[in-house]
């Protein structure tokens, strides 16, 4: 006769060191097994979409930094500006496009490093956190030298970038690339072959390919489940069509696959940065665009690949100085749908490992 157990409803968050912000999860447990997970969001809803309706396009950039995915501020700027520039038919100079591509890839490295560090803490490896933040500080130094900001840059502007890079910046960037490739080998030694790490991640939280596509997952989460889709390849923007890089795809769909995909993405980002440094032409960095930019009447939907996935912006303009409506399709929000699918049936200790592996940023979820 089987022992009858009652279901237990466990509340995780919003204050929990491993929820990466203020996510609340209502976990239904039977014994130690997870029966169901209901994420409760909205604890960081900052109403940026509404605020952008009262801001000019340039003012909206600083909001996109803060109100959306704050780990990848430049990716948000790019997403917003791609919509603005597509609707306004604004041409950016070649040098600005190369600079943007390079900065976006640095941003991807910085964002993935925060993810790796915090996920390391979640599953009990504090060393990873300290190592990742050591490398991240170097990226942030590069950003600070050219943009002046550590976290929120407001560097991309309609028609280009705000300022050219200072002298000697490219050498520092290349030095970082050399250093970082060796650091990635160190991370590999620390984690990839680590038996404890394997036990915590291999085969855990499997997301089948069909479920991933049905739920609208994108980015590394979908690519770890075998969906070979990347906006940078499928709908290239800026100079992504002119650089060589691979899209890492894994078939397993578990936490370890998501880890491997992101590690490989960082390597590919270094590869793209090197090509950008090599091909960076001299010239103008910003097209002549009026400060009070008025877009023609119309609507546009553009998509970019943020470190979390497919980041889309739907922009409606009525011809005024401010957008009529901005809708942001946030990748972290869509990836969150897969959460309960991934967690069902696993132990309560795996909840944290799975949640960390989808790289959630609550500002991106709630906006």
């Amino acid at each position, binding site marked *: 006769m089987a022992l009858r157990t009652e279901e237990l409803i466990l509340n995780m968050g919003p*204050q929990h060191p491993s929820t990466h912000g203020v996510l609340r999860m209502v976990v239904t447990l039977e014994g130690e097994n997870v029966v169901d997970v209901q994420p409760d969001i909205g604890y*960081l809803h900052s109403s940026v979409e509404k605020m952008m309706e009262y801001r000019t396009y340039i003012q909206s950039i600083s909001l996109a930094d*803060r*109100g959306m995915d704050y780990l990848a501020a430049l990716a948000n700027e790019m997403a917003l500006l791609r919509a603005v520039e597509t609707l306004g038919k604004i041409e950016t100079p070649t040098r600005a496009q190369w600079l943007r591509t390079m900065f976006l890839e640095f941003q991807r490295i910085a964002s993935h490093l925060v993810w790796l560090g915090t996920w390391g803490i979640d599953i009990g490896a504090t060393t990873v956190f300290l190592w990742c933040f050591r490398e991240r500080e170097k990226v942030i130094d590069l950003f600070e030298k050219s943009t002046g900001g550590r976290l*929120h840059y407001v560097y991309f502007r309609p028609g280009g970038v705000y300022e050219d890079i200072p002298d000697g910046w490219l050498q520092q960037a290349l030095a970082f690339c050399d250093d970082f490739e060796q650091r990635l080998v160190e991370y590999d030694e620390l984690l990839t072959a680590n038996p404890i790490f394997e036990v915590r991640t291999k085969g855990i939280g499997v997301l089948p390919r069909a479920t991933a596509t049905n739920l609208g997952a994108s980015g590394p989460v979908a690519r770890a489940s075998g969906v070979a889709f990347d906006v940078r390849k499928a709908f290239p923007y800026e100079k992504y069509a002119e650089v060589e890089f691979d899209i890492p795809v894994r078939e397993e769909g578990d936490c370890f696959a998501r880890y491997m995909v992101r590690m490989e993405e960082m390597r590919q980002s270094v590869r793209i940065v090197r090509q950008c440094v090599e091909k960076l032409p001299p010239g103008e960095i910003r097209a002549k665009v009026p400060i009070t930019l008025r877009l023609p009447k119309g609507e546009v939907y553009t998509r970019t690949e943020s470190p979390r996935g497919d980041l889309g912006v739907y922009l409606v303009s009525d011809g005024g100085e401010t957008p009529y409506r901005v809708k942001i399709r946030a990748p972290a929000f869509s990836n969150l749908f897969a959460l309960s699918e991934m967690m069902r049936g696993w132990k309560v200790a795996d909840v944290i490992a799975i949640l960390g592996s989808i790289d959630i940023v609550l500002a991106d979820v709630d906006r």
Partner: protein
Amino acid sequence: MPETPETVPPNGRAPGRDQSLRSSTVAPVDRLVEVVDALPGGSVILTTVEHVLNWGRASSLWPLSFGLACCAIEMMAAGAGRFDLDRIGVFFRGTPRQADLIIVAGRATIKIAPIVRRLWEQMPEPKYVISMGSCATCGGPFYYDNYSILKGIDTVIPVDVYVPGCPPRPEALYEGVLKLQEKIKKEPFLRRRAGVATPA
């Protein structure tokens, strides 16, 4: 709907404490303070004891690891290797029961305000609050045209130190913690607990 926060007295301590309950748990220390204070030269002894205790309290501030938004990333950076908050005794704890400092890092929404309040209430006395960044201080860039962000965390919990910036650099957070340490070192906290008047 968020609960209406109770009014907080200007000294920033928890309101509405049940005195009878309190004296039953901490009375021996408080009574000792009263006795020593009444002795000739007793206040000198008390000041010395307080000085030593305050030095210890200020040098081992344990904040709650509770990040709200972007400032939490800078808070993490301040805790990581380069800036290393551990050097000045700041060590992040996962539960409010073990924390004596809450760093409100980032914008607080109306939805999370009651939770921040509850976390603060769960922390044992004496407790301190650092408001990190413009959003936590006054709403920051989310002040105008916004329906969801709280216009300053000090409408919910009493704040000891405000750190400006959007987000503040880790060095700025350092400055905030050092300012808080200065404040703690001046506190006559034994006598305040016992309800004894402090010498001018």
